């Protein structure tokens, strides 16, 4: 079911961010991706921190925010956290622990592979995730790339 949505869907949008500031390596290695309905949303680093800290709950049109992550052991996850969120991976974990172990929220959903990340983001309105640049060759046709604000 996900595959059909994936292949038939020309709405899939992946937003790529240029490397404007340090740490350059992480930002250069990773693309942030999101569901196509979110093209007008703010994906600055500052807002990404709010999104990945599970503090931003809905988008501007009221669609719930759904956050996907790769496993913490993934080099892409580490590159994303240090490059875009500008924090250490355990610092992000600390924010998640605060949310979950205080009873005030839930953790993001972890996916096991890049393929699953792409499928889930494509199929879920309001979804956001990330992939490594080296995986971008697997992107389907119709993918748009834009340079986002910082």
């Amino acid at each position: 079911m996900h595959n059909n949505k994936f292949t038939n869907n020309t709405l899939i949008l992946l937003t790529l961010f240029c490397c404007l500031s340090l740490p350059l390596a992480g930002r250069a290695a990773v693309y942030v991706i999101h569901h196509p309905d979110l093209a007008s949303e703010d994906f600055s680093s500052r807002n990404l921190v709010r999104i990945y800290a599970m503090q931003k709950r809905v988008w501007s049109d009221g669609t719930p925010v759904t956050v996907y992550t790769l496993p913490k052991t993934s080099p892409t996850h580490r590159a994303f956290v240090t490059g875009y969120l500008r924090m250490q991976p355990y610092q992000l974990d600390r924010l998640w622990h605060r949310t979950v172990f205080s009873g005030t929220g839930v953790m993001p959903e972890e996916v096991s592979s890049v393929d699953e990340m792409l499928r889930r983001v494509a199929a879920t309105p309001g979804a956001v995730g990330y992939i490594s640049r080296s995986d971008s060759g697997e992107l389907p046709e119709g993918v748009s790339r834009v340079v986002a604000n910082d």
Partner: protein
Amino acid sequence: MINRSVKPSLAMLAAVLCSGEGWAAGPQFHGYGSLAWIDSPDNAYFDDTPGDHFNYREAALNGSWQIAPSWRIAGQVLYRDAGAFTDDKTRVDFLLLDYNFRLTEHESIGVRLGRVKNEYGLYNVVRDVPHGHPGVFVPQSVYFEAFRDALLAVDGGSLYGRFDTPLGGLGVDLFKGTGRIENPTAEYQLAQVDGPGEFDEVDEQGLRLILAPDALPGLALAYSVVDASMSLENVPDLSVQQLQAGMMTLANDPRDYGDYITSAQIDALLQLLSVQYSWHHWILSAEYLQIRNRLSDFSVLNNYQPDTSVTSEGYYLQLEWLAGESVSVYGRYEELYYNRDDKDGSGFYQRTGCNPYTQYNRALTLGGRWFMTSDLALTAEYSRNQGAAFLNGQAGVDFEDLQEDWDAFIVQLSFHF
């Protein structure tokens, strides 16, 4: 199988839960555990005698389910053995229903009912979570063990709001309810002995305001206030013979008054100022606590004593360096005074004859944490202490033997999943 009368209710519940767009994934389960080796060669620390031990360990199992965009349920069971600080080791840490009745991109308002954790300062809600803060323990000058149970959570509810304002992100948390005191730390705090009667619950209400100014990203400022009151309960009636025997005992040594307390009411107003600033890989945190305590209805062998009021204060300054992807290093200096007008405890000694060192604590702590994997960490720290106020609330400790200068070495293994 389902009774007809129940079906409409279930349908209505389903309709309520399904309101809004989209369903989140199913329930999540997480947890953590830790085991610490503590060596305190000078004073009893999490144990009833000086020395080393493995008395500090904990495990928690947590479940949460975002059943609809506006509805969530969550709960956590915590096992925590803190040696001389604990009696009951297992408790329901929280169990709540969260209804987020106003949710837009720029504001979120909701209510939580059940047993809810109290938003108080920077660390209260994560004080037991090993990776939730730097160091093995949260700063004892502000989050001291003796008031842990009283401040951790309430059976009642909380109202929360998050707002994007022209100044920045503003968080407002209100709570009200009854805190369950499951350990005799408050009794030890009052009289350094677990005498007759006990403080079982505390009525409390609180507010926290926290602001993250847009003008200076990385900065968070918070003000917390808690109004709490508790009474000594289940005090047995004393016979005439017991009263006479008690009077003879106190005539010989008035320091044993804790064994003969017949009533007590404690009212406390806690105010906490917090600031945290994150800059690149550095996090600077500081908090200042002031407690206005009032002891009333206080009687020893049914002889009522004059009401007394004291103001306690404590603060800490903490710097953490996020040195790498798997290493952090931290240092902290802190002070706590039970009576800011009697900082060396001499007045307390003159009044009660008890150990004055228990009335204050100054400490310097240095430590580091190594994440062996993303979920498994080893933390090591050393604390140099002057004063023994951090040791109050422990059972079985001879407070007269506590030394003014003492060290603590701690190594902790911890994990999350």
